[in-house]
């Protein structure tokens, strides 16, 4: 079909079939173009060769000579993953706003002791590279990795890296997040534990998209697998969970005496020691709680389930959700509460020990709001002017005394 035509140079340069043939080094399994060339006259042949020469020169050019480094492309890739994750969360957080509006929104709290933590020895060299190792005695936020090492998360920590198994880790002073970038196939049992000391808070963004806000003086263990049948976590202290929905893989908050099972929902869990109970407060969705005796209850939004450690009964009652979750926004709301009840919370938030002169102080009742960002003095001033309680601070100790004249 080529034989009857006599292409001009311009036409050859615009002919995809011809270009393909040149690109394949004049092979390409068809020799139509060879045949074509044979029947050309001298001028035709010269033009043909000229067209070939022009194209070959053009293809040898590299006019794209900006060379991006592999690091730059990698950074951009990480940025992409983070953004993609963030937008997923943004969709979710609409519900969080919702929760403040909805009447039926509620919560539940539970408490429990730290369950046994299975830690397997999967080496994660990358943590060594980005975080300082530590002993377990620090007042800083710590993370224990599957290799059983502790690492410090400091005020100036800000690193991100891709682990060998394709998980992207992004850690700073407020938050650690794990993002699955590739198919993570190897890791099945990969437990991490986060230790949050008094006066600090920390946020964990798990690989399944679940967000966990940890209150001061808490210890949280979670499995970072994407394959396990269940998503099991342990908590000692208090946390607010926003669980990513996945009906194939139930989310289990486990303890020695209470288990919470959810598919995807928002709830608060608390088991601080001084309370002698685990409580869980449901904001949205539904959750199932059960005790070792096999008693199990479904909780409605706005309700709180309590399990006292020395009793076997799960008590469900209506509660003020706003108050229960206020701590997640750095606010502490108390209504007609005895000083005795407030002290442990103040201790956790401000990391101070309180002493009293006079037992009757413990029965003083307070109503108010305390912001974590204000320092303790703010609260103590409030005590002084409203209740006539004086204070003195020495190092970590705060001494409270009833004013004589009142």
């Amino acid at each position, binding site marked *: 079909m080529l034989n009857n035509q006599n292409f001009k*140079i*311009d*036409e050859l*340069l*615009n002919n*995809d079939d011809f*270009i*393909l043939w040149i*690109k394949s080094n004049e092979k390409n399994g068809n020799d139509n173009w060879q045949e074509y060339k044979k029947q050309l006259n001298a001028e035709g042949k010269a033009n043909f060769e000229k067209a070939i020469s*022009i*194209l070959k*020169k*053009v*293809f*040898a*050019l*590299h*006019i*794209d*000579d*900006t*060379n*991006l480094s592999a690091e730059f*492309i990698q950074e*951009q*890739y990480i*940025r*992409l993953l983070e*953004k*993609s994750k963030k*937008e997923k969360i943004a969709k979710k957080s609409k519900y969080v706003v919702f929760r403040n509006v909805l009447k039926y929104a509620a919560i539940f709290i539970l408490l429990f002791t730290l369950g046994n933590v299975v830690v397997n020895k999967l080496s994660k060299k990358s943590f060594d590279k980005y975080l300082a190792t530590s002993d377990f005695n620090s007042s800083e936020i710590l993370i224990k990795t599957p290799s059983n090492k502790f690492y410090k998360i400091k005020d100036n920590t800000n690193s991100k890296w891709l682990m060998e198994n*394709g998980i992207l880790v992004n850690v700073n002073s407020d938050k650690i997040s794990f993002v*699955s*970038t*590739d*198919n993570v196939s190897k890791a099945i049992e990969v437990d991490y534990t986060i230790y949050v000391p008094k006066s600090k808070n920390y946020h964990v963004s798990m690989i399944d998209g679940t967000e966990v806000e940890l209150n001061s003086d808490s210890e949280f263990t979670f499995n970072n697998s994407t394959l396990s049948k269940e998503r099991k976590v342990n908590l000692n202290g208090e946390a607010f969970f926003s669980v990513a929905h996945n009906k194939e893989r139930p989310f289990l908050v486990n303890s020695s005496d209470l288990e919470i099972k959810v598919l995807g929902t928002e709830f608060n869990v608390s088991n601080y020691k001084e309370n002698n109970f685990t409580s869980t407060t449901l904001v949205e969705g539904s959750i199932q709680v059960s005790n070792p005796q096999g008693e199990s209850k479904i909780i409605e939004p706005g309700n709180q389930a309590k399990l006292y450690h020395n009793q076997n009964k799960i008590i469900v009652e209506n509660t003020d959700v706003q108050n229960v979750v206020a701590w997640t926004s750095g606010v502490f709301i108390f209504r007609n509460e005895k000083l005795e009840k407030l002290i442990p919370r103040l201790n956790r938030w401000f990391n101070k020990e309180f002493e009293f002169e006079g037992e009757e102080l413990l029965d003083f009742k307070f109503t108010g709001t305390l912001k974590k960002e204000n320092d303790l003095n703010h609260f103590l001033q409030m005590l002084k002017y409203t209740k006539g309680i004086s204070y003195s601070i020495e190092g970590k100790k705060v001494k409270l005394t009833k004013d004589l004249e009142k």
Partner: protein
Amino acid sequence: MSFKKTSNLDTQEDLWKLFLKGDMIAFRKIYNFHYQMMYNFGLRYIDSNEVTDCVHDTFLNIIHYKDSISEITNVKAYLFKSLRNQIYKVKKSKKIEFDLIDGTVAYQEDDTDKEKVLNELKLLIEKLSPREKELIYLKYFQGFNNFEISELLDVKYQTVRNVLAGAIKKLRKLGSNFIEILFFLLSK
């Protein structure tokens, strides 16, 4: 020519199918393979900061709307098209034009010879319309065929052919040594 395959087993189109099934390893390969090319392509419309954002948003959209993307015949053409659409979307209020050479040819400041030739070349290129420059670039420097270009730019196949024919004619008429100039300029 720039249209290479990473390996015989994994063509970009195969990787794309895997990605549509949720395989992020495949996605990452596609990303790494095309990033530089897309970046350079984008630079011909907008500056480097804007390109970085547009490439970012292009891939972000692909991740988000993965489920509504059907199988495609040429991954590179699809990515170029998406990036180009993204650039037009972002810059909708301003006029943007394709630029074949400006700012993209690296040469030594003290190399007066090259600078001279570059200027000559720029003058030559200026005779082309933005659309003609775009087509020349896609066809000869990015290795797309006329059919792919027509898909990429959403114009008729015949239009691509005609515009290219005009551009080639112009270039060869204006500077019979156009290609030689280009070659001289960039070969060293």
